[in-house]
């Protein structure tokens, strides 16, 4: 065999939008996967140098250690307000928040609701893992009925703690929301679909169409108390029935932009 004829072709590499660092996330956590998808999309759109991210308070509080772009760190729940401030003075930047379910749907419920209501031209990446990861496994607004957490030790009793909030369903009712979709990260086919939705959500912003959010059903092996593989099965068997996947809002003009699989 003539070695000189061999061509090396790169099939997989770290996106420019990600830094080359070790992860601090727990083994098996899907935060890393979500980071990668967002980074790939920003690379593909050629927007890395225009992007400004806003990190939440939660396990992804250090998102700026991974994303190779400008980043700010918000107070707990306030990322959409902060992103609003950034986008209003820098409309040409690609502004996005990356938020957990406690951050977005609990303490930051008012901020996300009003950013969507205003049709704020930002992109929101919403990680729904049905629990508070960073503080050690307390109930989230998305915790499933019956699910045990450290603050619902007998399981979430809807009589006491109320029902899970379905944020896509809620926000899709608002006129300001241009694109609202829910995807899952539990297997390869769904990861591909998630990426497509993220691309759509960023293109919506680039086209000035208004508020876009992609919710990603994610895991938390540590605080769910299970192995990584089991946690992916748990997403499929327990989370998806409560949080059905799909596009919840595809506003006027959105269908015509983006969404191409790359």
């Amino acid at each position, binding site marked *: 065999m003539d070695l000189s004829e061999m061509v090396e072709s790169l099939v997989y590499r770290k996106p420019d939008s990600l830094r080359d660092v070790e992860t601090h996330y727990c083994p098996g956590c899907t935060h890393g996967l979500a980071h990668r998808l967002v980074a790939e999309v920003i690379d593909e759109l050629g927007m890395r140098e225009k992007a400004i991210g806003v990190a939440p*308070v939660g396990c992804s*509080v250090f998102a700026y250690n991974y994303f190779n772009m400008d980043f700010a*760190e918000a*107070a*707990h*729940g306030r990322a959409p307000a902060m992103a609003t401030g950034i986008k209003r003075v820098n409309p040409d930047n690609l502004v996005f928040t990356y938020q957990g379910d*406690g951050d977005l749907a*609990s*303490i930051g*419920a008012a901020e996300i609701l009003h950013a969507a209501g205003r049709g704020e031209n930002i992109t929101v990446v919403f990680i729904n893992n049905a629990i*508070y990861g*960073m*503080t*050690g496994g*307390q*109930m989230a*607004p998305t915790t499933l009925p019956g699910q045990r957490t*450290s*603050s*619902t*030790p*007998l399981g979430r009793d809807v009589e*006491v*703690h109320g029902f899970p909030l379905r944020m896509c369903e809620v926000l899709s009712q608002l006129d300001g929301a241009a694109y609202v979709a829910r995807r899952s990260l539990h297997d390869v086919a769904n990861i591909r679909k998630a990426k497509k939705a993220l691309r759509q959500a960023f293109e919506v912003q680039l086209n000035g169409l208004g508020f876009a959010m992609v919710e990603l059903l994610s895991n938390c092996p540590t605080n769910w108390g299970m192995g990584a593989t089991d946690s992916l099965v748990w997403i499929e068997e327990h989370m998806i029935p409560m949080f059905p996947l799909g596009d919840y809002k595809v506003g006027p003009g959105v269908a015509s932009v983006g969404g191409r699989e790359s």
Partner: protein
Amino acid sequence: MARELLEGNVAFAEAAIRAGCEAYFGYPITPQTEALEHMARRMPELGRAFLQAESEVAAINMVYGAACTGARVMSSSSSPGVSLMMEGMSYIAGSEVPAVLVDIMRGGPGLGNIAPSQGDYFQIVKGGGHGDYRPIVLAPATVQELINLTVEAFDLAERYRCIVVVLADGCLGQMMEPAELPPMRAIRPSAERPEWALNGAEGRSPNVISSIYLEPLEEEEFNRRLLAKQAEIEAHEVRFRELALDDAELAVVGFGTSGRVAQSAVKFARQEGIKVGLMRPISLNPFPYDALGRLADRMRAFLVVEMNGGQMVEDVRLAVEGKAPVRFYGRMGGVVPFPDEILAEIRKLNAPTEA
């Protein structure tokens, strides 16, 4: 009751339960979340109210609401969460309803970190929210004191119809020490709730709890009442601990964790023959101005030690009134000083040049 090995966060939560706390509202935040988790388990067991609120803004307003019924109610949080509670605290003060808050302070400003700090002194002791009010502030240094002061906090809150804040830090929240819990007190029957409380105007004229006084003279009158209450509190509720001060020429002043670290340093300094003692304020409002003032008459110098950039030291200077030099040693951002650092400061203070 026997001594048990208790973690600070669990200890104050259980102490509150035994003091008859009927409702707890909170939001998870390190380093006090174990208290919320203890409440999540225990309160429903006892048929009492526990709710994880959607935010600290909501939590303190739930406390405000429950307090209006005259029920014993509390929340706990840590610095960033306590910042969110400032609005609600002002409303509670402006309505004169009793409530208890435990702040397990952590490093700041901003998101900071989760390590022990005393950076909230100004915010808590001087009021924090808008308007002219001050909570009673109690600063424990041991798990036992944390327990005792939590129980007392409920009694004081009711006696003065005000907020009582138990101000501690991550060190005390996370550490385990032998301590004794108080016996379980019976919950006050709802028929015995105070007469100002909102429990339905059955057979009486309606009660109104509000903090609005549109007429400035009326608002001023209300503020005067708060001041009179503060004077009453200053007259009766000053608490502090003194150690080795009888023959001392130098006094170290520190509250909470920095106070107990200073205690070790004072012990070492005494072994070196330095005549130094410790004054540990326990009530930060009312502040032991008089006791410190009296000490100032016979001390050569003071050293104030805090886990912040210098906050309580301002009150010590007010108390000392220039009668002796007041030096400051602080560690910030979640750093707890070691005794040897404070010992080095005591030696400096003792050196002839400092006299």
